[in-house]
């Protein structure tokens, strides 16, 4: 069901397609950005010799470079973002970043030779783009994965991922909004911290 999408979203970046040469002189396009993430993740995922902790560090650097966590945190909070002061925003962004990163890194164990085909890109208005891709797995339907990017100072950064048409950030936004509306921002922070510690513990590092 759609539930596994949340987990699946995180898996996708770790999968890779066969390296495709991109012209060095070309301006960066959204699709190149996604191909880069995919192509750089592949060797790390397949590398069985390097210790797991080191591979996680490599992947962490990689995603920090390509993802725009500040924007992601802001949209994940929806209109409640406006009600927070600067300190709360910083706190939330930091915790959300750690949470998403750990969720993503936890998926290393799940990699079992899947491939990713980057299919194409669409403009979503000035400065916004969607790159379509598929996770190809043997004997099963491919999983549709779209990357949503925006241009910041000439660089394309990923601010959301959809898996089988479910936006991960929108999914978290619904969860976060519910908790804030019913129990307040502090409760959300407490719940996220607890979840984050669970994830951290399961990573074992």
């Amino acid at each position, binding site marked *: 069901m759609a539930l*596994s999408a949340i*987990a699946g979203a995180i898996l996708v970046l770790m999968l890779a397609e066969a390296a495709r040469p991109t012209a060095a002189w070309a301006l960066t396009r959204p699709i190149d950005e996604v191909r880069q993430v995919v192509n750089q993740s592949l060797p790390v995922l397949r590398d069985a010799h390097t210790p797991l902790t080191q591979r996680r560090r490599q992947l962490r650097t990689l995603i920090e470079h390509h993802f725009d966590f500040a924007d992601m945190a802001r949209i994940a909070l929806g*209109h409640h973002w406006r009600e927070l002061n600067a300190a709360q925003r910083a706190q939330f962004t930091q915790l959300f970043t750690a949470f998403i990163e750990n969720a993503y890194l936890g998926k290393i164990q799940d990699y079992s030779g899947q491939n990713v085909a980057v299919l194409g890109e669409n403009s979503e208005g000035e400065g916004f783009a969607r790159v379509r891709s598929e996770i190809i797995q043997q004997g099963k339907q491919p999983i549709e994965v779209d990357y949503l990017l925006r241009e910041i100072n000439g660089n394309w950064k990923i601010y959301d991922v959809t898996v089988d*048409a479910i936006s991960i950030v929108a*999914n978290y936004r619904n969860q976060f909004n519910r908790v804030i509306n019913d129990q307040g921002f502090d409760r*959300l922070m407490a719940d996220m911290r607890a979840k984050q510690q669970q994830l951290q513990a399961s990573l074992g590092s």
Partner: protein
Amino acid sequence: MAVSEPMMGAGTKQCAKRLASLAIVALLATLMLVSTTFAQSAMGADQAAPPKLPGEKALPGEAGGPYPDPLEPFNQTMFTFNIDLDQWVVTPVAKGYSYVLPEPARHSVNNFFRNVGVIPRFANNLFQLHVYNAADELARFGINSTLGVAGLFDVADSWFGMKQHNDDFGLTLGHYGIYSGAYVMLPFFGPSSVRDTVGLVVDGLMNPMDWLLPWYVSISADAGSQAIDAVNYRSLHPNQFEEADRYAVDLYGAVQDAYMQTRTAELKRLAQ
């Protein structure tokens, strides 16, 4: 005359049954309209854009709030019920079942259920004037019921590349502009909306078994086959809940949003 009287009696009963079904649909439809109005106004209030701060570029969805959920107390109860049912009944049964039946066989069971569910898919594709999809569904049923050994193998897809075209009456209503209405967590069936619950009932009425067999037989046969379908599905997706729960801060909200986003995407796909 003497012979035809009991026949007439049976006919009247059938008729009463159909009327009762229609009454249920009408009731649900009313509920749907009421809750749709409610949900729409709640949605409007929630999604009013807040004042912009200088220097912040608008991002898609940043003004969004949670889905309106007027039935939340009921939904919460049913959500807990479904999770308990899954944890204490369906999962243990599915575990034993997977131990007995190897995975390829379970895929075949799944194929079988998808194959016999052709009527609502065919009808709703037709209702929405997706004539080629409806024709595909008919052809798939013919191919899989024969070459695919009573539907155990989806050879229409693997040999002829004909994909299944999922469709249901909830999507037909949506196609003709009916809003989803409030979110509903149904016991046994899982996440739904008022509109999609009406759809579920209407699709259920299309089951020919209900019309050919006495009601007590068809109801228990329905329940039995749905239970097998559920256990079989769970055996093919063993980590579904665990995975979702691992990454969710609020599992109820995660499931609700995943359902709503999926239905919106299905409608959009059908509109293309």
